[in-house]
Protein backbone atom coordinates (compact mmCIF):
# COMPACT_ATOMS: atom_id res chain seq x y z
CA UNK A 1 0.00 0.00 0.00
CA UNK A 2 2.80 2.38 0.89
CA UNK A 3 4.49 2.03 -2.44
CA UNK A 4 1.18 2.66 -4.18
CA UNK A 5 0.78 5.89 -2.22
CA UNK A 6 4.35 6.92 -3.06
CA UNK A 7 3.54 6.27 -6.69
CA UNK A 8 0.43 8.42 -6.51
CA UNK A 9 2.45 11.17 -4.83
CA UNK A 10 5.10 11.06 -7.55
CA UNK A 11 2.41 11.19 -10.21
CA UNK A 12 0.89 14.28 -8.58
CA UNK A 13 4.32 15.92 -8.57
CA UNK A 14 4.68 15.25 -12.28
CA UNK A 15 1.26 16.77 -12.91
CA UNK A 16 2.15 19.79 -10.78
CA UNK A 17 5.24 20.42 -12.86
CA UNK A 18 3.03 20.49 -15.96
CA UNK A 19 0.93 23.16 -14.23
CA UNK A 20 4.11 25.12 -13.70
CA UNK A 21 4.33 25.54 -17.47
CA UNK A 22 1.08 27.50 -17.42
CA UNK A 23 2.29 29.56 -14.48
CA UNK A 24 5.45 30.39 -16.43
CA UNK A 25 3.91 31.06 -19.83
CA UNK A 26 0.35 32.08 -18.90
CA UNK A 27 -0.45 35.10 -21.04
CA UNK A 28 -2.29 36.93 -18.26
CA UNK A 29 -1.44 37.25 -14.61
CA UNK A 30 -4.73 35.58 -13.76
CA UNK A 31 -3.64 32.48 -15.65
CA UNK A 32 -0.60 32.36 -13.43
CA UNK A 33 -2.64 32.76 -10.27
CA UNK A 34 -4.97 30.01 -11.45
CA UNK A 35 -2.06 27.69 -12.16
CA UNK A 36 -0.49 28.36 -8.77
CA UNK A 37 -3.86 27.78 -7.15
CA UNK A 38 -4.06 24.39 -8.86
CA UNK A 39 -0.52 23.55 -7.76
CA UNK A 40 -1.59 24.57 -4.25
CA UNK A 41 -4.48 22.10 -4.23
CA UNK A 42 -2.12 19.35 -5.33
CA UNK A 43 0.37 20.33 -2.64
CA UNK A 44 -2.34 20.11 -0.03
CA UNK A 45 -3.28 16.61 -1.14
CA UNK A 46 0.39 15.67 -1.21
CA UNK A 47 0.81 16.87 2.37
CA UNK A 48 -2.01 14.60 3.49
CA UNK A 49 -0.47 11.75 1.49
CA UNK A 50 2.88 12.29 3.19
CA UNK A 51 1.16 12.29 6.57
CA UNK A 52 -0.22 8.87 5.68
CA UNK A 53 2.98 7.40 4.31
CA UNK A 54 4.96 8.49 7.35
CA UNK A 55 2.06 7.51 9.59
CA UNK A 56 2.13 10.83 11.45
CA UNK A 57 -1.49 12.02 11.69
CA UNK A 58 -0.47 15.40 13.05
CA UNK A 59 1.11 16.31 9.70
CA UNK A 60 -2.45 16.82 8.47
CA UNK A 61 -2.42 20.18 10.29
CA UNK A 62 0.02 21.51 7.72
CA UNK A 63 -2.42 20.60 4.97
CA UNK A 64 -5.20 22.37 6.85
CA UNK A 65 -3.08 25.54 7.01
CA UNK A 66 -2.69 25.27 3.27
CA UNK A 67 -6.35 24.71 2.58
CA UNK A 68 -7.18 27.90 4.47
CA UNK A 69 -4.38 30.16 3.28
CA UNK A 70 -4.34 29.21 -0.39
CA UNK A 71 -7.84 30.61 -0.62
CA UNK A 72 -6.92 33.73 1.31
CA UNK A 73 -4.03 34.53 -1.04
CA UNK A 74 -6.12 33.98 -4.15
CA UNK A 75 -8.87 36.25 -2.88
CA UNK A 76 -6.54 39.06 -1.86
CA UNK A 77 -4.58 38.80 -5.12
CA UNK A 78 -7.69 38.91 -7.32
CA UNK A 79 -8.93 41.87 -5.33
CA UNK A 80 -5.71 43.69 -6.17
CA UNK A 81 -6.16 43.00 -9.87
CA UNK A 82 -9.85 43.81 -9.83
CA UNK A 83 -9.52 47.25 -8.30
CA UNK A 84 -6.63 48.15 -10.55
CA UNK A 85 -4.44 48.93 -7.57
CA UNK A 86 -1.58 47.52 -9.58
CA UNK A 87 0.17 49.72 -12.08
CA UNK A 88 -0.21 49.18 -15.82
CA UNK A 89 -2.34 46.79 -17.80
CA UNK A 90 -1.62 43.34 -16.44
CA UNK A 91 -3.16 41.53 -19.37
Amino acid sequence: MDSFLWGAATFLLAVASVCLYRAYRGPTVLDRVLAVNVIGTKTMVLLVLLAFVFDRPLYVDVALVYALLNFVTTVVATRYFETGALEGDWQ
Partner: protein
Amino acid sequence: MKRALVIALLAAVAMPLLLAAARMPRFGSVEQPAYTHVARRYLERGAEEAGAENIVTGVILNYRGFDTNGEVTVIFTACAAVAAVLACSGEGRRPVRAGTPVALSPVVRYVVRLLAPFIALFAFYVVVFGEVSPGGGFQGGTVFGALIIVTTVVVGRDEAERLSPERPRLWLQAAGPLSFLAVGTVGALLTGWYLGFPHVPRAIAASMLMALEFGIGVGGAMVLAGIFWRLGDEA
Protein backbone atom coordinates in the same frame (compact mmCIF):
# COMPACT_ATOMS: atom_id res chain seq x y z
CA MET B 1 40.44 38.05 -20.18
CA LYS B 2 37.97 39.26 -17.63
CA ARG B 3 35.99 36.07 -17.94
CA ALA B 4 39.09 33.94 -17.46
CA LEU B 5 39.93 35.93 -14.36
CA VAL B 6 36.45 35.38 -12.97
CA ILE B 7 36.63 31.66 -13.64
CA ALA B 8 40.06 31.44 -12.00
CA LEU B 9 38.82 33.32 -8.97
CA LEU B 10 35.75 31.12 -8.69
CA ALA B 11 37.86 27.99 -8.99
CA ALA B 12 40.21 29.30 -6.33
CA VAL B 13 37.29 29.79 -3.97
CA ALA B 14 35.53 26.59 -4.94
CA MET B 15 38.49 24.26 -4.52
CA PRO B 16 39.02 24.72 -0.77
CA LEU B 17 35.28 24.57 -0.20
CA LEU B 18 34.95 21.32 -2.13
CA LEU B 19 37.96 19.84 -0.36
CA ALA B 20 36.47 20.82 2.98
CA ALA B 21 33.13 19.33 1.97
CA ALA B 22 34.85 16.10 0.98
CA ARG B 23 36.34 15.78 4.43
CA MET B 24 33.04 16.29 6.20
CA PRO B 25 31.20 13.31 7.62
CA ARG B 26 28.74 11.79 5.15
CA PHE B 27 25.24 13.23 5.12
CA GLY B 28 23.21 11.44 7.74
CA SER B 29 26.20 9.62 9.16
CA VAL B 30 26.15 9.03 12.92
CA GLU B 31 29.62 10.49 13.32
CA GLN B 32 28.41 13.98 12.49
CA PRO B 33 29.02 16.28 15.44
CA ALA B 34 25.36 17.25 15.50
CA TYR B 35 24.39 13.63 16.12
CA THR B 36 26.93 12.68 18.75
CA HIS B 37 25.80 14.25 21.98
CA VAL B 38 23.57 17.31 21.47
CA ALA B 39 20.87 15.67 19.43
CA ARG B 40 20.87 12.58 21.61
CA ARG B 41 20.35 14.68 24.69
CA TYR B 42 17.54 16.60 23.00
CA LEU B 43 15.84 13.41 21.92
CA GLU B 44 16.28 11.47 25.12
CA ARG B 45 15.61 14.10 27.71
CA GLY B 46 14.01 16.95 25.79
CA ALA B 47 10.45 15.96 26.57
CA GLU B 48 10.97 15.96 30.32
CA GLU B 49 13.51 18.76 30.53
CA ALA B 50 12.15 21.36 28.18
CA GLY B 51 8.50 21.36 29.18
CA ALA B 52 7.13 20.61 25.71
CA GLU B 53 6.39 17.26 24.09
CA ASN B 54 7.27 18.57 20.65
CA ILE B 55 11.05 18.62 20.74
CA VAL B 56 11.29 21.35 18.13
CA THR B 57 9.35 23.69 20.39
CA GLY B 58 11.51 22.70 23.32
CA VAL B 59 14.71 23.38 21.41
CA ILE B 60 13.56 26.67 19.94
CA LEU B 61 12.14 28.22 23.08
CA ASN B 62 14.05 26.51 25.86
CA TYR B 63 17.49 25.24 24.89
CA ARG B 64 18.01 28.02 22.40
CA GLY B 65 15.86 30.63 24.08
CA PHE B 66 18.41 33.42 23.67
CA ASP B 67 18.58 32.76 19.95
CA THR B 68 14.82 33.04 19.60
CA ASN B 69 14.83 36.15 21.74
CA GLY B 70 17.09 37.73 19.13
CA GLU B 71 14.97 36.51 16.23
CA VAL B 72 11.82 37.95 17.72
CA THR B 73 13.56 41.28 18.11
CA VAL B 74 14.52 41.10 14.43
CA ILE B 75 10.88 40.72 13.45
CA PHE B 76 9.92 43.73 15.50
CA THR B 77 12.79 45.68 13.97
CA ALA B 78 11.53 44.81 10.49
CA CYS B 79 8.19 46.35 11.32
CA ALA B 80 9.87 49.44 12.71
CA ALA B 81 12.06 49.69 9.59
CA VAL B 82 9.07 49.48 7.25
CA ALA B 83 7.32 52.16 9.26
CA ALA B 84 10.40 54.37 9.17
CA VAL B 85 11.01 53.95 5.43
CA LEU B 86 7.39 54.59 4.47
CA ALA B 87 7.17 57.58 6.80
CA CYS B 88 10.33 59.20 5.46
CA SER B 89 9.64 59.30 1.72
CA GLY B 90 7.29 62.25 1.75
CA GLU B 91 7.74 64.38 -1.37
CA GLY B 92 9.03 62.31 -4.25
CA ARG B 93 6.37 59.66 -4.02
CA ARG B 94 4.10 59.03 -6.95
CA PRO B 95 0.43 59.39 -6.15
CA VAL B 96 -1.29 56.05 -5.65
CA ARG B 97 -3.52 55.42 -8.63
CA ALA B 98 -7.04 55.54 -7.39
CA GLY B 99 -8.23 52.72 -9.64
CA THR B 100 -11.79 52.24 -10.71
CA PRO B 101 -14.00 51.46 -7.74
CA VAL B 102 -15.04 47.87 -8.33
CA ALA B 103 -17.59 46.46 -5.94
CA LEU B 104 -16.55 43.33 -4.15
CA SER B 105 -18.13 40.10 -5.31
CA PRO B 106 -20.89 39.15 -2.86
CA VAL B 107 -19.88 35.50 -3.14
CA VAL B 108 -16.31 36.14 -2.05
CA ARG B 109 -17.46 38.45 0.70
CA TYR B 110 -19.92 35.90 2.01
CA VAL B 111 -17.50 32.99 1.98
CA VAL B 112 -14.75 34.99 3.67
CA ARG B 113 -17.15 36.10 6.37
CA LEU B 114 -18.22 32.51 6.79
CA LEU B 115 -14.65 31.26 7.12
CA ALA B 116 -13.12 34.06 9.20
CA PRO B 117 -14.16 32.71 12.65
CA PHE B 118 -12.85 29.28 11.73
CA ILE B 119 -9.51 30.73 10.70
CA ALA B 120 -9.33 32.63 13.99
CA LEU B 121 -10.02 29.50 16.01
CA PHE B 122 -7.55 27.56 13.92
CA ALA B 123 -4.82 30.12 14.59
CA PHE B 124 -5.44 29.70 18.30
CA TYR B 125 -5.25 25.93 17.90
CA VAL B 126 -1.91 26.15 16.11
CA VAL B 127 -0.46 28.28 18.91
CA VAL B 128 -1.78 26.13 21.75
CA PHE B 129 -0.84 22.84 20.15
CA GLY B 130 2.69 23.96 19.37
CA GLU B 131 3.90 21.79 22.21
CA VAL B 132 2.56 18.49 20.88
CA SER B 133 2.19 18.97 17.13
CA PRO B 134 3.80 20.98 14.36
CA GLY B 135 2.95 24.58 14.96
CA GLY B 136 3.57 27.18 17.58
CA GLY B 137 3.72 30.90 18.03
CA PHE B 138 5.25 31.90 14.70
CA GLN B 139 2.92 29.75 12.65
CA GLY B 140 -0.24 30.59 14.54
CA GLY B 141 0.65 34.26 14.51
CA THR B 142 1.14 34.18 10.75
CA VAL B 143 -2.22 32.51 10.24
CA PHE B 144 -3.81 35.19 12.37
CA GLY B 145 -1.95 37.87 10.45
CA ALA B 146 -3.31 36.43 7.20
CA LEU B 147 -6.77 36.58 8.73
CA ILE B 148 -6.31 40.26 9.58
CA ILE B 149 -5.10 40.94 6.04
CA VAL B 150 -8.03 39.19 4.35
CA THR B 151 -10.45 40.88 6.72
CA THR B 152 -8.98 44.25 5.79
CA VAL B 153 -9.29 43.58 2.08
CA VAL B 154 -12.66 41.87 2.01
CA VAL B 155 -14.72 42.95 4.99
CA GLY B 156 -13.18 46.32 5.67
CA ARG B 157 -10.59 48.08 7.76
CA ASP B 158 -13.07 48.70 10.59
CA GLU B 159 -13.59 45.03 11.17
CA ALA B 160 -9.87 44.33 10.99
CA GLU B 161 -9.29 47.00 13.62
CA ARG B 162 -11.35 44.90 15.96
CA LEU B 163 -8.90 42.05 15.60
CA SER B 164 -6.02 44.41 16.25
CA PRO B 165 -7.32 47.33 18.29
CA GLU B 166 -5.84 50.77 17.65
CA ARG B 167 -4.80 51.71 21.17
CA PRO B 168 -2.57 48.85 22.32
CA ARG B 169 -1.31 47.96 18.83
CA LEU B 170 2.06 49.59 19.28
CA TRP B 171 2.68 47.54 22.39
CA LEU B 172 1.24 44.39 20.87
CA GLN B 173 3.64 44.68 17.94
CA ALA B 174 6.43 44.40 20.46
CA ALA B 175 4.71 41.49 22.22
CA GLY B 176 7.43 39.04 21.17
CA PRO B 177 10.43 40.79 22.72
CA LEU B 178 8.30 42.00 25.63
CA SER B 179 7.11 38.52 26.51
CA PHE B 180 10.69 37.30 26.39
CA LEU B 181 11.67 40.14 28.68
CA ALA B 182 8.86 39.31 31.10
CA VAL B 183 9.49 35.58 31.14
CA GLY B 184 13.22 36.18 31.38
CA THR B 185 12.68 38.41 34.37
CA VAL B 186 10.45 35.83 36.03
CA GLY B 187 13.17 33.25 35.42
CA ALA B 188 15.75 35.62 36.86
CA LEU B 189 13.65 36.14 39.97
CA LEU B 190 13.16 32.40 40.44
CA THR B 191 16.65 31.16 39.66
CA GLY B 192 18.99 34.09 39.37
CA TRP B 193 19.56 33.65 35.62
CA TYR B 194 17.81 35.36 32.70
CA LEU B 195 15.19 32.85 31.44
CA GLY B 196 16.83 30.30 33.76
CA PHE B 197 15.21 27.29 32.10
CA PRO B 198 17.58 24.58 33.30
CA HIS B 199 16.73 25.37 36.89
CA VAL B 200 12.96 25.62 36.96
CA PRO B 201 10.71 22.57 37.44
CA ARG B 202 8.94 21.19 34.38
CA ALA B 203 5.47 22.49 35.20
CA ILE B 204 6.66 26.08 35.52
CA ALA B 205 8.84 25.72 32.43
CA ALA B 206 5.78 24.54 30.47
CA SER B 207 3.73 27.58 31.45
CA MET B 208 6.68 29.86 30.66
CA LEU B 209 6.92 28.29 27.21
CA MET B 210 3.19 28.83 26.69
CA ALA B 211 3.53 32.50 27.63
CA LEU B 212 6.37 32.85 25.12
CA GLU B 213 4.33 31.13 22.40
CA PHE B 214 1.46 33.54 22.89
CA GLY B 215 3.76 36.53 22.98
CA ILE B 216 5.41 35.48 19.74
CA GLY B 217 2.05 34.71 18.13
CA VAL B 218 0.41 38.00 19.01
CA GLY B 219 3.53 39.96 18.17
CA GLY B 220 3.97 38.25 14.80
CA ALA B 221 0.35 38.77 13.82
CA MET B 222 0.41 42.44 14.76
CA VAL B 223 3.70 43.04 12.96
CA LEU B 224 2.34 41.47 9.77
CA ALA B 225 -0.84 43.50 9.99
CA GLY B 226 1.20 46.61 10.72
CA ILE B 227 3.44 46.12 7.69
CA PHE B 228 0.45 45.43 5.45
CA TRP B 229 -1.46 48.48 6.61
CA ARG B 230 1.52 50.76 6.32
CA LEU B 231 2.13 49.54 2.78
CA GLY B 232 -1.50 49.97 1.92
CA ASP B 233 -1.93 53.43 3.42
CA GLU B 234 -2.54 56.18 0.92
CA ALA B 235 0.50 58.31 0.34
